[in-house]
């Protein structure tokens, strides 16, 4: 390749909002449920039914807009996007084209070179999700399930400000974390509560004009996004190098084949005949409303990162990992509040919790234990009720079943034995059974004591206070 190319990327991110009810009716947004269990005349497009806006949707959209430094549109409207498809019961989607709720924002990301840059946010708009087609494998029948129809979404449209897969992932990560902190969505890519479409073009380094872009769909993980970007960049460069033209089109990514194919070109693009939905009145957003949403904004990741270092004295590395997942930050703060030992809480999360998550192929979101039980376990370890080995065992039970450590230790008889008499007896037995090691120690092989401690701990089923064992051993061996 003789020339240098630059990749230009913009993202359209769809986020499913965490409201209890749908955007235009009072049906539940709960996942699962029998086909069409969560439906009513409104979300199934019955004749004569009318949409009524869920205020919480507006508040979540505003919250995300404020967190991403957007301007809030004081007078915003909903528009109808007209197209025919059976998962769309009215054959129009209620969305926002002309006056979206948020505009002209941006968030700062860290680039792979360690620098910082701002990715602009063109707009955020509110819209409804569609239903789902269920195809009968045997027959020639398809069933429409409208349970997802009317589930609220926001679409966050970035400016074409990203230049590499790393920047895209950094942007998505930041956005996801921010939205999770706001409680506006759980943002799970695999489950589709966060979906990203990638708009990508390439141009010769230094060129002023953008190249022709394509839009990539069906990206279900960060890994797929990164792979698709690389693949599409190369595909476009190959086209240009071989003297062909990039066609403006929508492509679908197949991650299993690491390959994308064209879905529709711009020529086939539909005319959606957008116009303001006459069934909905414009939304007027007052200063007071914006301020009340702003006042409810929780502490966001960047602010937390700074506070964990200044208030709790955590190293930056710890603070980054803890604030990098909302669940961790939540558990950290709650457990620290109870036991007042931030560094210890941090250690349990960063070492044992992450280990168990990996072992069980779980996400932090799947954590079920209560911060109170972690705090209790820390106290039990600190006051010597259990030793560190037993503590790890107890923590596994906390992690798996959220047991109460105090009761568990009591019931299982896991308390550390501090009774010097009992310990001495055991140590004597161990020494008797391992004369070789005793001999070695006496001959100056100090390491041999470790083996004897281990044997004693084993005999005590791990419940001995290791320091006491050490002490007693040393005393007896020096005789």
């Amino acid at each position, binding site marked *: 390749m003789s020339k240098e190319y630059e990749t230009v990327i913009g993202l359209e991110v769809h986020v499913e909002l965490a409201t209890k009810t749908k955007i235009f009716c009072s049906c539940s947004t709960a996942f699962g449920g029998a086909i069409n269990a969560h439906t009513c*005349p409104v979300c*199934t*497009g*019955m*004749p*004569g*039914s*009318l*949409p*009524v*806006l869920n205020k919480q949707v507006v508040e979540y959209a505003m919250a995300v807009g404020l967190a991403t430094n957007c301007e809030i549109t004081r007078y915003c409207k909903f528009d*109808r996007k*007209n197209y*025919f498809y*059976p998962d769309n*019961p*009215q*054959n*129009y989607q209620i969305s926002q084209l002309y006056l979206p709720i948020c505009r002209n924002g941006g968030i700062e990301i860290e680039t792979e070179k360690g620098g910082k840059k701002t990715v602009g946010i063109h707009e955020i708009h509110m819209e409804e999700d569609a239903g789902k087609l269920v195809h009968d494998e045997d027959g020639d029948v398809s069933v*429409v399930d409208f349970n997802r129809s009317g589930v609220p979404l926001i679409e966050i449209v970035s400016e074409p400000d990203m230049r590499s897969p790393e920047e895209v992932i950094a942007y998505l990560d930041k956005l996801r974390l921010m939205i999770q902190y706001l409680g506006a969505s759980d943002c799970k890519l695999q489950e589709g509560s966060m979906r990203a479409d990638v708009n990508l073009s390439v141009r010769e380094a230094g060129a002023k004009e953008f190249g022709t872009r394509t839009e990539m769909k069906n990206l279900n993980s960060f890994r797929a996004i990164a792979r698709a970007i690389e693949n599409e960049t190369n595909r476009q460069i190959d086209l240009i190098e071989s003297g062909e033209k990039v066609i403006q089109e929508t492509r679908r990514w197949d991650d299993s084949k690491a390959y994308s194919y064209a879905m529709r070109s711009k020529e086939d693009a539909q*005319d959606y*005949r*957008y*116009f303001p939905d*006459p*069934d*909905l*009145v414009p939304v007027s957003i007052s200063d007071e409303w914006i301020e009340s949403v702003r006042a409810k904004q929780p502490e966001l990741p960047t602010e937390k990162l700074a506070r964990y270092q200044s208030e709790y004295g955590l190293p930056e590395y710890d603070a980054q990992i803890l604030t990098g997942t909302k669940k961790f930050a939540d558990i950290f703060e709650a457990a620290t509040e109870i036991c007042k030992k931030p560094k210890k809480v941090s250690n349990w999360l960063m070492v044992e919790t992450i280990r168990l998550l990996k072992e069980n192929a779980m996400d932090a979101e799947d954590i079920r234990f209560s911060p109170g039980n972690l705090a209790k376990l820390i106290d039990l370890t600190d006051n010597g009720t259990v030793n560190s080995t037993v503590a790890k065992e107890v923590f596994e039970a906390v992690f798996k079943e959220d047991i109460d450590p105090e009761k568990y230790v009591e019931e299982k008889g896991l308390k550390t034995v501090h009774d010097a008499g009992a310990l001495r007896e055991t140590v004597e037995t161990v020494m008797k059974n391992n004369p070789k090691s005793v001999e070695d120690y006496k001959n100056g092989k100090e390491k041999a004591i470790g083996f004897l401690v281990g044997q004693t701990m084993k005999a005590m089923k791990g419940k001995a206070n290791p320091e006491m064992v050490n002490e007693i051993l040393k005393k007896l061996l020096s005789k």
Partner: protein
Amino acid sequence: MSLTSLTAKELGIKIKEKEISVKEAVNDTLDAIEKKEGKVNSFVTVADRDALLKKAEKVQKKIGEGTLDGPLAGVPIAIKDNICTKGLLTTCSSKILEGFVPTYTAEAVKNLEDAGAIVIGKTNMDEFAMGSTTETSAYGATKNPWNLGHVPGGSSGGSCSGVAAEECICALGSDTGGSIRQPSAFCGVTGIKPTYGTVSRYGLIAYGSSLDQIGPVAKDVTDCALILETISSYDKKDSTSMKREDLDFTSALKDDVKGMKIGIPKDYFGEGLDREVSEAVKGAAKVLEEKGAVLEEFDLGLVEYAIPAYYVIACAEASSNLARFDGVKYGYRAKQYEGLHNMYKKSRSEGFGTEVKRRIMLGSFVLSSGYYDAYYLKALRTKALIKREFDKAFSKYDVILGPAAPSTAPKLGSSLDDPMKMYLGDIYTVSVNLAGLPGISLPCGMDGEGLPIGLQLIGDCFKEKDIIQAAYTYECTREYRHSPLSDVYQG
């Protein structure tokens, strides 16, 4: 004489005084429909007699217990077929809604039923309320009870002919561009189109959502006020519904217009208006003047832009509103098709009539990219300017008076060949919808052929009481004329 010759108020009183039972009222109405339906075709669906009699029994019991004591308790009423009624076929007079039985009842109908009124059946209309003659119905044209060779007007033709023929005492219609007022005028009955947002649209199958309103059709102003008072309510299910404290419309039934300022737009009496209609309407104005009203002619302005603006906006909204009728979920589906898109195409091509297809195409066109600004946005701006013209007028006048339609009812079959001419017939009614105003149409005379002429009174937003009072005062000066199909026809 049939009970259907009474007014709703009169029947309500007789029921309350136990002179007539609810069952008798229901049976009498059903008998009248059976007897006359072959001639007029006002109904698409008549409810089952046994089911109605069971309902009548329940209502009777509640009246006896005193839990239902409103003026409409026990009164049968007909509902236009574009208003959803749970368990009762609702077709919008279209083949595409063949067999569609709603799972819920429209808010306006629910309000009526809560007041003890009994839904007797669903009235014929122009398909999806698109038309001015009730000839575009997939279930056959409705006839004018005054002359069966003429149309009843439309689109609420079945509601108006049903009341005029005295098949039913009163009915609900809907009005997007004159669909209550024009057929009321043609059939010699009274109808009100309320201020936009007064009656919930929940359950009204939309034609032009920003213009549609449900309203009453009856023999007189009193019944209309009574019914309007009953169906009006703030409804959280309709985002365009208004919270109003002044829904006691019957309080405006006063025989008094002393000092009332009535504006007469010169533009409403120009070219295209029948001489006989003009004279009758002017005669009505004179009567009001004699009763103490102050008349003044004025220039309304922008009148010629109302029809194009109306058709652009109504058709644009309709093209999207009617997209849901696709053969997937309910109603008609083509018998033979290959694949999804062919199913859509065939179901819609076969299910919709010519006029509906014309308006869907027109609406799709004006919303298309490249035309949106030139047509749709321009029409919205025109709408705003028309509203301003009315605001100016209402700063001077309490009520605007004019004809409801440029002519009396045309002959059957004479309108559909020339849609432009038919559209121009809406000249006096559409601006009321564009501006969201209330309007009433009531009889004010007959032409030489014995067809009724309608007087239209227009009020400012939320000023239904002004037009009700003026209309009532005028009505007090004359007798109600029963149509030839009535059992008390006066000749």
